[in-house]
């Protein structure tokens, strides 16, 4: 599913974000990427959806080689991925329904299918009653649920989440994690960079710890392992 071989990322200002990372993530895995701020977690997830390019090494995602990929292939890579951000990134002038439908419209999905899928995923994240609401009328947790619905509406093989609970209180974070778990149960791979120690410790999933750009721990049913 995701295969990194000896991947390094050095930014143009010379700072080394990742060095010689080799890792394999299988289909259906649920992975936490943990580590102190600036350790390279964010770079790690950004490489997967080709927001950043590896400086050296090979990275294969859903059978596509990121390093040798032509720019016009990137959209097709991303159609197989769902991306969730800490700051939700919803469009304020669109309703909940339209925010989710937007992700299907812009890849030119058939209209009838859009309606069906959008209602399905909104049901899955528990927002069926709020389809006509605007993001500003929602709580943070609800907004993140809309973002998750948008990320999975195109049936991605992998969902990538960069600090999805970073802006949410503990109770809400739990609700969000339950949704991710539900998505994972359908066979979708989940890669989540996070700071959220209680969540990581309680979920008992595979944990990859990154420090100063290197993987220092890769543990099945792991814990956060840092004092947060």
């Amino acid at each position: 599913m995701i295969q990194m071989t000896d991947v390094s990322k050095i930014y143009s200002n010379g700072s080394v974000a990742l060095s010689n990372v080799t890792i394999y993530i299988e289909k259906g895995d649920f992975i936490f990427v943990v580590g102190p701020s600036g350790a390279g977690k964010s770079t790690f997830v950004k490489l997967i959806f080709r927001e950043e390019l590896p400086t050296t090494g090979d990275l294969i995602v859903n059978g596509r080689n990121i390093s040798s990929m032509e720019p016009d292939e990137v959209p097709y890579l991303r159609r197989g991925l769902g991306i969730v951000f800490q700051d939700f990134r919803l469009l304020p002038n669109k309703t909940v329904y339209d925010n989710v439908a937007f992700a299907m419209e812009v890849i030119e999905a058939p209209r009838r299918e859009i309606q069906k899928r959008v209602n399905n995923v909104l049901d899955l994240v528990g927002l069926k009653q709020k389809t006509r609401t605007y993001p500003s009328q929602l709580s943070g947790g609800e907004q993140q649920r809309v973002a998750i619905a948008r990320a999975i509406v195109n049936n991605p093989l992998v969902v990538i989440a960069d600090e999805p609970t970073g802006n949410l209180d503990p109770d809400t974070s739990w609700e969000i994690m339950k949704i991710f778990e539900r998505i994972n149960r359908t066979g979708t791979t989940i890669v989540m960079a996070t700071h959220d120690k209680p969540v990581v410790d309680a979920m008992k999933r595979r944990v990859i710890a990154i420090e100063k750009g290197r993987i220092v721990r890769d543990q099945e049913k792991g814990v956060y392992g840092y004092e947060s």
Partner: protein
Amino acid sequence: MEYFVRESLASLRHNGLMSIASITTVALSLLILGMFLVMVLNLNNMASALESQVQISVYLQDGLSDYDTRTVGTRIAGIPGVTQVTYVNKDEALSKFKQRLGDQQGILNALGDSNPLPNAFEVKVDTPDEVKTVTAAISQFSGVENARFGQEVVAHLFALTRMVRIFGLVLIIFLALAALFIISNTIRITVFARRKEIGIMKYVGATDWFIRWPFLIEGMILGFGGALIAVLLLTKSYGLFTEQVYQSLAFLPIIPQYPFLTNISIILLVVGTVIGALGSTISLRRFMQV
């Protein structure tokens, strides 16, 4: 397709003032471009009309006897290169002149019965190159008041055309750049206003062309709209202009409005649309990398 047009129109409405400014600039630039095109083509037309009828007019001294007149005619016909010599007496000359004046011939009534025009020969030569030497030779003949040929006028007209063309070209380039700049600026504002949306489109896998189209269409609408205004103004004013010329200066060889202006309109509309598309492309390249 429907999506693209809907998005473009929404954005045009959203940036009302900038859209109007863009359309106005394009309209102004293209109107001036159109005016210069019309002017240059008309001057060219006039020059070549004159050139094709290069002939030497030989004006005779007043009161020259018939015999002397005939002698001059024979001598002219004897010059190598001369193909045709036609005698035009002063009465004929006056009625020809009256014809050319058309509606305005009333002004000649002031002359009363007197006729200020001299007797003359119209001389045609083999090739335009010979005109100068033949004219010089004829000027020396006794009984000849003076000999002239139209090439001087043609040369002046061509010089004028060249000047208008250079001046017009500089102005047009300058205005086209201004139009390009303001359109790309309008699109830049649109792109900026929608950068969040574009970002999300990229994350969920929209292709670059899908993202570009609404902006391209918006730019093309701005360019086409401006061109349309320019075309309407130009057509209307050229119509009025030709009408005036036909009424009062009928002898001027003006190019008729159709199909001449139809062609110019097509050129302007295409140029406007291309400028619009180009302006969008510049902004998309620079500010969105799509």
